[in-house]
């Protein structure tokens, strides 16, 4: 073997570890810089890439937060109504969609008297009124009272609705009834709630 080749071999061998380690160093440096350095604009939705978007049309048009015409005033025992809306998932990730009561104001103790049933059905068109709610493929998620609805995603395990990736519509029908057994101690009382759908 020539002296020249042996020499080249030594150089190449000497350089190889340097290349590997440098690449490792570069990799760590670049990744760390990208992930951890730019912090000033990190609040809000600045970096949202829209991988997962969840909206509902409870207010007529799709928005992350809506105010559906939900509940009522001047309720008497047996008063009832149904609200239908569509939760739209527009994301690249599949997940389980669950509904829960994210906020409950029940200082009057009325919530146990408000019976709630929640039904869900997959749909291909926007459902914002109950006459459009699907008649087939309906799953019954809850039949309980307002205060007994789960308060977080973990508690809502029984109400999984599997949602595929892409734009998916899931119609919900929520029927409430002021229980007919509600006695007069519940006259002129109030309860309020925020309902949240979450996908994970």
């Amino acid at each position, binding site marked *: 073997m*020539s002296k020249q*080749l042996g020499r080249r071999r*030594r*150089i*190449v*061998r*000497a*350089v*190889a*570890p*340097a*290349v*590997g*380690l440098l*690449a*490792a160093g570069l*990799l*760590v440096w670049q*990744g760390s810089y990208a*992930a*951890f350095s730019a*912090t000033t604009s*990190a609040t*809000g939705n600045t970096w*949202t*890439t829209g*991988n*997962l978007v*969840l*909206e509902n049309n409870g207010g007529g048009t799709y928005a*992350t*937060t*809506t*105010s*559906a015409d939900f*509940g009522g*005033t*001047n309720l008497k025992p047996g008063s009832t109504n149904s609200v239908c809306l569509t939760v739209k998932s527009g*994301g690249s*990730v599949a997940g389980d969609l669950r509904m829960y009561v*994210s*906020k409950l104001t029940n200082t009057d103790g*009325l919530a146990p008297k408000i019976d709630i049933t929640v039904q869900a059905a997959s749909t291909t068109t926007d459902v914002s009124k109950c006459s459009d709610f699907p008649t087939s493929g309906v799953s019954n998620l809850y039949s309980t009272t*307002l205060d007994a609805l789960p308060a*977080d995603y*973990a*508690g809502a395990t029984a109400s999984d609705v599997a949602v595929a990736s892409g734009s998916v519509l899931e119609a919900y029908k929520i029927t409430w009834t*002021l229980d007919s057994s*509600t006695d*007069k101690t519940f*006259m*002129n*009382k*109030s*309860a309020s709630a*925020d*309902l949240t759908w*979450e*996908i*994970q």
Partner: protein
Amino acid sequence: MVTEIAIEAPAMPEPARHDFGSSARLWCGFLGRAWLWFLGGCLVVTFAPMAFGWRPYVVESGSMQPRINVGDVILASPEHDPGRLLGHVTVFNDPDPSHAGTVKSHRVIRLNPDGTMTTKGDANPTPDPVALPKSDVIGIGRLLVRWIGLPMTWLQRGAWVYLALLLGSVWLAAVFVVRDRDEDDESPNDEDPDDEFADGEWDGLAEPEKAAEPSRRRTTEDFGTAFAVAAREPRSLRRAHHRRRLTPRQRLRKATARLVVVTSGSAALLIPTSQAAFSATTSVVGASWTTAATFGPDYTTDVKSLNPYLYWKLDDAGTTSVAVDYSGNNRNGQYTPAPSGSTQWAMLQTGGLTGQSPNLAVTAAGGANNSTTCVYTNAAAQNPAVNTYSEIIWFKTTSTQGGKLIGFESSQTGVSNSNSGGQYDRHIYMDGTGALSFGAWTGAATTVTSGPGYNDGAWHMAVATMGSAGGMRLYVDDVLVGSRGFVDSQNYDALNGGWWRVGCGNLSGWGGYTTQTNYGFAGSLDEATVYTSELSASNVDKLWIDINPRPVITGLQNGNFETGSISPWTCTTGSGISTNAHSGTYAAVLASNGSKAGECDQTVTLLPNHAYTLTAWSWRATVGVTGGATGSAPPSSNGNKYGQVNFTFTTDSTGVVTVYAQGQAGGTGYVDDITIN
């Protein structure tokens, strides 16, 4: 850069075939070495900081994309100051109960007043639903090692092909390196390997110009200058490594080397994982339920359900002169004088609809003069049908002057002077004694009149109705106080019609009223309603019981004791259900409790002011009622068996009585088959 070299290598001019094979081995060895050192470097970076308390976490999901991807390893240093965490990727124990026990890496986007932090995945549209307490924080992200955790995620996902490819590449790299070394072993001219790297370095660093070929020189330059520092760092390590290589047992050495490489590579699988979970939420906020002020029926709803022509609830605040029409027909009234600033009207007074909400009324000063308080229709009304109409007015007064409560007149304001063609009828008015009249004019006055005394300071509901079904009737407080089979009224001018008025109007020629003037009603007025239809007694009753609900008639329960239980009777100690029945299987036994006679009671609600007969079969027992009525039947004359007894009683206005069956002191009695009819 590694790839670039790999491409260049075959293109390099080599003098001989042997040299070409040797060169290929050399460059393969280069690639293998670089790959192994790369992996080793990443592993060192990943694990070395553990010496000073940093911890690595493999990211398992993609909610921090595009900055942090699945398979990256976050190195977190302990940091718990929320102020420093704000805006940074933070590693924490997930406070969300649904992810209990998992570690999450999300960005702190907000500090909350209660000391918690709001976190969010960069790729998530909404923040995490559960706030992060300081106690759950593990640390702040400091270093990110890309991809090194991928084997971990492959292992978890069962992506065995990828795992196999990686291990294969490591094995191949090891083979390349060993082959390259084998060449050294085959070469007698080989220098002391201990000096190999030192020579290489010095050649590269000090004499780059000596390199023979341009392409190779460039390569050497690049590595030599740019990477020299990096290359020198692990020198002692390499020395140690290559010294081992000098031992004679090559095969064992190769195997050991491969094992070391694979084992250290597998160490990546030991890195704990961290979730950067995708999640998104959407909410419907402000759902609100409020119950009615009363659960009883709603008077207003029931009035409307009868389809009124006009309906002035007189709930108006008086800021304008409008008396709002609730009929849906937009027939608003007008207060005169204007209530705002007027002492003649008291607005928003407590009304007659006890228990309803709102329950408001107006109080009028009244008085017999032309400028008295009045509410009249804004627009002229058509000539109402002469034979079918109804009016309702609620009122409360202690006045002894009487006045008109509601009626129809040919003039909107002032006096419809009968001497000059003025017309006024279809009215309810009160005289000085508090008696109410409903009057219709057909050339002469036709009235139905109640007894006196409705000026007693209490709210009353007066209903006047006319129609073919019941003629002309006047109800006060749901009681028919006057009626006659008369169905006709004043025929007003077909073109001009007239005006409905509440609280005032001419009464000249009616009852004791003789003067041509506005007879204003002094008192409270509420719920003025006009129908163009006849109201039935049940219509009137339904409205009345909206405000004055009747007790629920329970009647007597389990009077024959055949439920086998004494309930709902309540008995003294020792008394209760018995099988010594008159009929069926069961009866009640009334056993003396010490010296006291045994007794069973039941409180029942019956129709008020109603006569009843109680019938029972008793045996040495007295049966009776107390409370809202009194009556009893002594034990039957036959002392040795059941005998039938009965008595009558009349309930009071409450209708509530207690039925009792009582045995004898020191003895035992029985009762069965109690009925109340």
